[in-house]
């Protein structure tokens, strides 16, 4: 890239930023409530996918089906689709006991993530798994994680 090209790019970024911020604000204020939820769900899922790749995929696998007897599947189980608070607790506190999912037992340890992941990251990754691997369930919000974190401190 030439020097002039680089400068132009930096300059246009400065110009664009305020404009983008304005567009976003305008959008939120003018769109309906349901559309706003959809967009925040979508962006949470997108961020959650990234978190999943970094934090979860090694054990729960690309397809979310886990590893027999070791790492449980995340697909269509009550652990993922059921009580939000319990699910958030699993991520925050980890699991150090054998668990049963759909009649099969899984014994590998799940590490705690309370000191390594933010409320937002946990909300995003849980929203991602609740809406992937054949799952369809409601969004988990940052505030949900925050509440469980405060309660279980």
């Amino acid at each position: 890239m030439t020097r002039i090209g680089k400068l132009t790019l930096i300059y246009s970024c400065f110009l664009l930023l305020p404009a983008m911020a304005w567009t976003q604000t305008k959008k939120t204020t003018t769109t309906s409530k349901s559309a706003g939820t959809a967009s925040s769900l979508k962006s949470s899922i997108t961020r959650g996918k990234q978190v999943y790749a970094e934090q979860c995929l090694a054990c729960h696998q690309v397809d979310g089906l886990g590893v027999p007897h070791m790492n449980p599947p995340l697909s269509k189980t009550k652990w993922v689709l059921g009580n939000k608070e319990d699910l958030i607790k699993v991520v925050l506190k980890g699991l150090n006991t054998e668990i049963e999912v759909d009649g099969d037992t899984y014994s590998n340890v799940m590490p705690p993530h309370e000191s390594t992941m933010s409320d937002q990251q946990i909300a995003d990754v849980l929203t991602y798994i609740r809406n992937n691997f054949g799952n369809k369930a409601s969004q988990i919000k940052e505030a949900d994680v925050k509440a469980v974190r405060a309660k279980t401190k």
Partner: protein
Amino acid sequence: MLSTVFVTAHAGDTTKVAKKDLSENNPPDVAIKTPTGFTTAIYADGLGSARHIAVNDNGDVYVKLAKKKDGKTIYRLQDTNNDGKADKMTGFGDYTGTGIAIKNGYLYASSDEEVFRYKIDGDHIANPDQPEKIITGLLSRHEHESKSIALDNDGNIYVNIGAYSNACQVVDRTPGSPGMKPCPILDSAGGIWQFKADKQNQTYGDGKRYATGLRNVVGLDWNTSTNTLFVMQHGRDQLHTLFPKMYDDKQSAELPAECMYELHDGSNCGWPYIYYDQFQNKKILAPEFGGDGKKTAGEDAQDPVVAFPGHLAPNALLFYTGNQFPEKYKNGAFIAFHGSWNRAPEPQQGFYVVFVPFKDGKPSGKWEVFADGFAGSPQQVASGRAIHRPCGIAQAKDGSIYISDDNKGTIWKISYKGK
């Protein structure tokens, strides 16, 4: 050239996970490939989680299950009409587990905490509901819990007590948690313990820590030509997830090697402080203990006899003493690789049986894949959604070998028929 046998899968008798996969993705057949001159046939099927297997003098096969089948966890499989297929199954035992072995007229079998033995009366178990409890109170903490067993010719039984940990961190498998030095797990796990094969109710105090620094061993065998115990270690996981700045996905998929060790009284194989890097051919200081992927360590730890690719999960080892297979197989090692999971997001590997030729008690050539195709298609290998997973190996009376699978519970018999 490879000979091939097509195998029909029975969708009705499998674990829930496998069932889901079968109906959604998997074609029902697998083709087992072996070198020219070998044939493969199904001996038994539908046993579920068929872990290790043992063969009695009369040819009956005994299989240990990690999941109950009709309430039982050991099955005697008989081929009463000599057509090469089991036609009679008798179940006993109500404890799940992995280990099974036959020695000097006794059948030995393990749960995840105990080892039992049953007197063999001619061609059957004398009292299948009242075994002697040989060993009791072994640690089982839901990680590397299976107790594999092997017996020597001097009245000893060797038991793997796997470490309930990946790398002996303060908090297991957790980024940022440091390694514990000395690792307290090694007092009661992370090694091979030796007990008397004929004494009841032994526990830690009665046994001896025969070898230490072994994260988890599932496949082990007493080599009668060297008169030593050989073991296959499951190497550590998650170098990338725990140390993303030091190891990328690919390095984490390849490292560390799955190692074969020859053990002696007092052997130390180095876990958790080191792992073996099969590219540098060195023992590398584990990152939990200050390693950077290059620093070597473990001067007091043994080197492996053979180093295999990472995470393939060697679940069975057999030194071949039969006369049926060609000369090159005599005294060599067969290893059943259960198949990887810790290579994700890289493609998974394994799900095959390999052979290592031995001469004068040492490997005399490179390892080679002996039997492959258990998982199904290349996609099923890569995704890890294997139809079958090799888990046990035993030598038949006629010199054939049996391979067990703990996903659907198929047992194959591989024989040499000549060119």
